[in-house]
């Protein structure tokens, strides 16, 4: 399967999508008899979408994302990604499932005793890349996320923003078609928050579907993308994206802008 021009350009002309990429159908997550993460969430997401999940702490944002990556198994309902029933995955199939997505957890989840470049390289080598491939690509991705100058630092030597960038770099190293970020700006100041969001926006422009859980209302609104609001484990609002006229006045302008930032659209080969 290859990705040519990002679906974002197509969506500029044709809002909506023909087929559902990710579907949540009446999904419930019950942690204990008293604590429920999700209560009957139904939602469709198209390929190439950029969706924010907003809500207060405990509203179910993280649960929703974790159900998709199978960090949490839902209690009832159905979750599908590319037609694959995520709830039916066997334990031994979960690693392969996660390799197709990039995950940026809330706590950054960096391996504490590995240097920055080793953290990113691990994600590549763990799934079979050679040392030479890893060495080449890690250097590139660290530059993309603007952390190349700290490649030899350990996570505890980095600031929150730097750790976040490493986590994003690691999530991107295997060219995932789906990026899941849980509170990526949670511990960052506004300037760094915007930097991270800009990075995610660029990725989305290259065709990556991006799902972000965030309670940073200012940043979310400024991005002008679809916002799904949750409260007490239920979807209470689903705001479709405002066409980003202000950001990209024309399709041609958008293409130029994107290419100026990230180069020509990626063609990513994925294994079966």
């Amino acid at each position, binding site marked *: 399967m290859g990705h040519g021009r990002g679906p974002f350009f197509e969506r500029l002309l044709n809002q909506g999508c023909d087929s559902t990429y990710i579907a949540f159908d009446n999904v419930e*997550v*019950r*942690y204990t008899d008293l604590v429920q993460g999700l209560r009957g969430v139904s939602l469709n997401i198209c390929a190439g979408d950029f969706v924010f999940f907003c809500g207060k702490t405990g509203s179910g944002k993280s649960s929703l994302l974790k159900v998709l*990556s*199978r*960090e*949490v*198994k*839902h*209690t009832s309902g159905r979750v599908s990604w590319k037609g694959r029933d995520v709830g039916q995955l066997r*334990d*031994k199939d*979960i*690693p*392969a*499932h*996660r*390799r197709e997505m990039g*995950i940026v*957890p809330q706590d950054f*989840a*960096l*391996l*504490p*005793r*590995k240097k920055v470049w*080793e953290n990113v390289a*691990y*994600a590549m*080598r*763990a*799934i*079979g890349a*050679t*040392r030479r491939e890893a060495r080449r690509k890690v250097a590139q991705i660290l530059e993309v996320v603007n952390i190349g100058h700290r490649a030899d630092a350990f996570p505890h030597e980095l600031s929150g923003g730097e750790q976040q960038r490493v986590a994003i770099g*690691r999530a991107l190293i*295997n060219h995932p078609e789906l990026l899941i970020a849980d509170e990526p700006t949670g511990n960052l100041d506004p300037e760094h928050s915007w930097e991270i969001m800009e990075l995610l926006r660029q990725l989305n422009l290259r065709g990556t579907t991006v799902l972000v859980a965030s309670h940073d209302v200012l940043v979310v609104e400024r991005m002008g993308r679809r916002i799904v609001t949750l409260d007490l484990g239920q979807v209470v609002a689903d705001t479709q994206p405002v066409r980003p006229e202000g950001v990209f006045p024309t399709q041609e302008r958008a293409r130029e802008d994107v290419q100026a930032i990230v180069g020509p659209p990626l063609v990513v080969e994925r294994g079966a």
Partner: protein
Amino acid sequence: MIDKIEFLLSEAFIALRRNGLMTFAAISTAAVALFLLGGLGYVYFRVSQYATDVSGKFEMSVFMRMNLPREDSLAMTEKLKTLPGVKSVSLIPREDAWLKQQKDLGLSGEGLDNPLPDQQKIILSDITKADGLADKIQDMPEVYQPNGVEYSTEAQQLISQMLAIVRWLGGALGTLLLVTAGILIYNAIRLTVIARRREIRIMQLVGASYFTIWTPFVIEGIVQGAAGGFLAAWLLFAANAGLQAFVKNVSVSMMFPSYPLWPIALLLGTVGAMYGFLCSSFAVREPLRHGSSIQR
């Protein structure tokens, strides 16, 4: 394939280096446990060796039935050789025994019938089996009844009983220490795994397979166990040397056997590596199983 092996090995050795304190704790625990186990094993080995040496000095005489054909006596010699606890058997024909006795007693022997039967001379390999062996032989139809077996002296019986007690105690203590060492090493390795439970979760998050996460942990366990084993062998060497020096001061006459350092280091290293493999395999299983997906 080579790249994958290199990756798994480097993961293990980098983790060993960077988790220095936990590595040290695991190695030192394994060393202490294997020192005790190895020490007991070494003492047991020496006692067994002593028992074998002592046994070789004790004989058992078995008198055949009077007028037993020579072929039967020869067959009996072969039969006795197969019994447990027997080191060697030699047949003393009645004619030779009679000649010896005449010589010893200063008799001419003329006009006298040979009153002696054929005799089997048995050298024991295991003194503690002497009683059972004697009973078994006495029941054989070729043997003179009712007292065809002569063997025991009081000293022999005393040594035999002492050795039996030492062996029994050694076996019981050895089994206990074997289990205790396993528990100690398992706990030490399990602590290193628990301390890195979050790392395991992160590895799972980026799509690392069970095998990719499990293997470096197991390699770490093997290295920790083997290193503990080698260290234990050196500790034993030092303890043996210390004891030897102490005994020399007290008594010059007592001879100490030399300590075979390298064979013991190899043995304890292998035992430690096996412990490390088993313990780390079990220790890493739980966080791996529970970390992949939280079941609700």
